[in-house]
């Protein structure tokens, strides 16, 4: 049981990086960006093929980050310069990335067994694999949360937040909203690709299919985090994303343990997210109902 829990926490910490990326587009920019499904696999593909060809795993992971940023840039340009709706821009990038990822790896999946990964260094200190992943994941998450907390407090970061909140107002304050949308997508997809690179190394393989459904997992983690751990200020929000991602993984581990077939996982996640997203609607039905009950009493 402890082993399952540790596994869930380690996986959750890695997915937290992706969750933060999804949060940037979905909540801060108010865009549902589907390109992340492609960029997570792209991060995995880049890191895996570079490590396979003998590159230092840290350098390979950094290049994966930049690759994801490039993908975000493409989605941003499609959306802002070519005026394609955000949802469709993301889908176009996602589909294109599928082919690109196959080209990067040369085949549909690539094994990293017995290759040096970013976790190897920690394992050399005598840690087992999942402890090494937890330690490195914790380092990564702390770094990402710290940098983003600083960044969204700066002038440019504030401009991105204003753009997502009220683009009309942002333009009236002299903010180039198109550039801010592009920048947000670049950062988001960079983080998602980094997450893909870290996951591929932790599971010792990269698969061109691994992105499927990842946006839903990201959204589920964002929402679980918001509901369970609050959104008082920006720092607690970032923290809640990390805890949300971990909680999601623990829930999944538990339902699998309770005997749910792994093939049903994606449907389980989709239903969870659908219910969570529709909560405001149910609430608006419930509130007049509650009032009428109170009124009768």
């Amino acid at each position, binding site marked *: 049981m402890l082993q399952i829990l540790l596994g869930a926490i380690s996986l959750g910490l890695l997915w937290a990086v992706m969750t933060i990326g999804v949060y940037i587009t979905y909540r801060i920019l108010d865009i549902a960006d589907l390109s992340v499904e492609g960029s997570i696999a792209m991060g995995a593909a880049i890191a895996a093929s570079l490590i396979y060809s003998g590159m230092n795993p840290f350098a390979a992971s950094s290049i994966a980050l930049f690759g994801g940023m490039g993908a975000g840039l493409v989605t941003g340009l499609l959306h802002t310069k070519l005026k394609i709706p955000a949802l469709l821009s993301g889908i176009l990038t996602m589909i294109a990335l599928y082919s690109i990822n196959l080209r990067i790896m040369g085949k549909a999946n690539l094994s990293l067994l017995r290759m040096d990964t970013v976790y190897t260094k920690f394992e050399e200190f005598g840690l087992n694999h999942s402890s090494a992943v937890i330690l490195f994941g914790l380092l990564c998450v702390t770094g990402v949360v710290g940098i983003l907390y600083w960044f969204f407090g*700066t002038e*440019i970061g504030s*401009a991105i*937040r*204003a753009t997502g909140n009220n683009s009309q107002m942002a333009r009236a304050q002299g*903010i180039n909203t198109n550039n801010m949308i592009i920048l947000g997508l670049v950062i988001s997809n960079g983080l998602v690709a980094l997450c893909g690179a870290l996951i591929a190394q932790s599971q010792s393989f990269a698969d061109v299919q691994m992105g499927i459904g990842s946006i839903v997992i990201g959204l589920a983690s964002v929402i679980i985090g918001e509901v369970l751990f609050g959104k008082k200020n920006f720092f607690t929000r970032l923290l809640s994303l990390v805890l949300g991602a971990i909680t999601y993984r623990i829930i999944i581990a538990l339902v699998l343990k309770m005997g749910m077939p792994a093939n049903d996982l994606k449907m389980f996640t989709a239903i969870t997210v659908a219910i969570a997203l529709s909560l405001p609607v149910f609430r608006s039905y419930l509130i007049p109902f509650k009032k009428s009950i109170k009124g009768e009493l």
Partner: protein
Amino acid sequence: MLTINGISKKFNIGTINEKQALTNVSLTLEEGDFITLIGGNGAGKSTLLNCVSGVHGVDQGSILIDGLDVTKLSEHRRAGSIGRVFQDPMMGTAANMGIEENLALAFRRGQSRSLKWGITNKERERYREYLSQLDLGLENRLSSKVGLLSGGQRQALTLLMATLIRPKILLLDEHTAALDPKTAEKVLQLSDQYIKEGNLTTLMVTHNMVNAIQYGNRLIMMHEGRIILDIRGEEKQRLTVEDLLCRFGKVSGEVFANDRALLS
């Protein structure tokens, strides 16, 4: 300060909804001019303001701000010299951001933004002082989300944001229309105070004829995309609502059709 040279604007070109919103409109505002702009529904008042601020491009003509041709500049590039307050109180502020954060965004209007902190402690003190002058109790709620404020408070804040950096032109687009009469009066007086203190060149759209006569040094009436009346100086000071309606009838050959204007 603002020169509008024969601008025309057509919407939905080539469709059944094609509409000539502005026809060859020319207007010059001297520094410190406070123009009230009045007209019926669809007269082109808001379109004119939106062309000046860059929300819409123009089909013909040119727009110069302080001698600089801005006709081809995008909205955010013009923002450095233009302060705006919109009709909808939700439009001028970012609801999910704090009062101080909104002010800080406005404080950087027209400057390039960098990776410096989005707001400094020195600014906070200044904002607190400015907010206390509004007398709305906002000075103690600097970090409150703007979404929690009432329409009047948001409009007053938007006005403060629009004038935080002295704008070369202040555009007020029916900015009190969505407020209750008492709040509207207060926001209007506040606008007048800021305009006088800063000697701001202002273009204010209003649907209220009394306000249009009461405020500003020049009154312009638009009808079907053209300027049909331009009254200034002493003549404006002597103007009454009856005069205005009568002169509108003479120039346009129609009865002034704007329920809101007549009722208020």
